[in-house]
């Protein structure tokens, strides 16, 4: 394959770098890279790898574009609201660089399809937003001996490294052998994230990807970059392979993919339903509306933080953030015999609050499934979604 006139023009700034030159650019054009997630990290990754002329980009994401994505997911635009992220990204890359073949996988990556999808690519980039998928990506890459370029963000902090067990490097399990208990580490949807942060971390991942494909520079294998945007500091930590790692250690016990939801302690949908039915009763947002309209006697408790309450609230709700509920539970003493209906943003924190109050002898606690987000969607669209 020879570069066309257009390609020579397009990639000229690469071609005049001796470290890349024509050979390197041809190598990029024949490379295959899989992006897991087309969100905050996946957006800059797809844009820059597409612009650089990576020949085949695979995009895995089951989600659709939401207005709240646009603060950081720079590959998507207003005209794609409600449409699949992978299609939005594919259209943008097609406009940017026709040399790039985009393969879309509009599905969640699972233990069933992961090996089949990953097999087709040279490098895998982890830009997902949850622990089960991170462990799944890690294990699948190690089993297939493919480099896994890892990046992760939360509020003002980011992490990046390269896991490459085929070259003797550590894996994600060497860094964090066990996932945190479910709900203990909030997601970006619950905890927030500085919009530029995925740009910085995603482009560290993109840089590592290009270097690995070209075989230049020294990679992040065995080094974890910990980034603090508030202090504007990059800290580098040496990361070693754990000889006792069940995946990449001296006597591995993991030889195939497992159930990662279960590994991360997330109940299966049917178990979840059963648990919630037996433990904490739940109502939907429209059911809450009906109770309010009927002027039933109950306390509506909002367990989000003050700054969230300032953004949007359900009329009549009393604020008592989950973060202080243990110290301030005394304030609810007068309501002990009453029904207490609890909501948060999406239903997770309110469930924790229900369980806590139940353990303190509040017998009639009810959780609002989907929280104020469901209220905006199903009852009152004038209440802002954030």
């Amino acid at each position, binding site marked *: 394959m020879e570069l066309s006139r257009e390609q020579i023009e397009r990639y000229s700034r690469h071609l005049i770098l001796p470290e890349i030159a024509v050979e390197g650019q041809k190598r990029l054009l024949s490379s295959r890279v899989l992006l897991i997630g087309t969100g905050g990290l996946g957006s800059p990754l797809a844009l820059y790898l597409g612009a650089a002329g990576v020949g085949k980009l695979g995009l895995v994401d089951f989600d659709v574009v939401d207005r709240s994505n646009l603060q950081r997911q720079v590959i998507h635009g207003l005209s794609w609201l409600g449409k699949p992220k992978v299609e939005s990204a594919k259209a943008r890359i097609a406009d940017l660089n026709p040399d790039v073949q985009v393969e879309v996988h509009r599905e969640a990556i699972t233990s069933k399809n992961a090996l089949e999808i990953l097999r087709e690519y040279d490098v895998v980039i982890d830009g997902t937003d949850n622990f089960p998928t991170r462990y799944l990506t890690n294990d699948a890459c190690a089993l297939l001996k493919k480099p896994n370029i890892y990046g992760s*963000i939360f509020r003002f902090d980011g992490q990046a490294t390269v896991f490459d067990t085929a070259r003797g490097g550590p894996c994600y399990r060497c860094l964090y052998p066990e996932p945190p208990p479910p709900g203990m580490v909030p997601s970006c949807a619950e905890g927030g994230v500085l919009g530029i942060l995925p740009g910085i971390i995603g482009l560290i991942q993109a840089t590592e990807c290009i270097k690995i494909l070209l075989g230049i520079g020294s990679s992040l294998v065995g080094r974890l970059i910990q980034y603090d945007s508030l202090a504007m500091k990059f800290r580098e930590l040496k990361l070693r392979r754990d000889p006792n790692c069940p995946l990449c250690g001296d006597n591995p016990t993991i030889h195939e993919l497992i159930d990662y939801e279960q590994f991360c302690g997330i109940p299966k949908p049917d178990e979840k339903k059963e648990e919630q039915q037996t433990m904490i009763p739940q109502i939907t947002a429209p059911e809450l509306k009906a109770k309010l309209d009927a002027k039933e006697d109950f306390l509506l408790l909002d367990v989000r933080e003050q700054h969230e309450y300032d953004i949007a609230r359900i009329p009549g709700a009393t604020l008592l953030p989950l973060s202080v509920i243990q110290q301030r539970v005394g304030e609810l003493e007068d309501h002990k015999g009453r029904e207490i209906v609890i909501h948060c943003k999406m239903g997770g924190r309110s469930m924790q609050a229900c369980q806590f109050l139940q353990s303190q002898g509040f017998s009639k606690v009810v959780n609002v499934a989907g929280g104020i987000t469901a209220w905006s969607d199903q009852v009152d669209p004038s209440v802002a979604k954030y």
Partner: protein
Amino acid sequence: MTRNVRVQYFGILREQRGCGEESRETGAASPLDLYRELAGEHGFSLDPENLRVAVNDEFRDWDSILAEGDKVVFIPPVAGG
């Protein structure tokens, strides 16, 4: 015997501590003792086995020995993307 250490917090711990970095005089002999001391004061939600500790830019065992002037960083997992 007490020692002065520099402590840095990432992710959820930054929020729970209310700052990113501080100096601290402590009687804690190991990162584990130090974490337990801080967790007791600030109500950290994560157990030590759910996070990693680095001292002077190297990951360390929880029961290693702390020295005067050490830079201790607590690094919880983050999953956002």
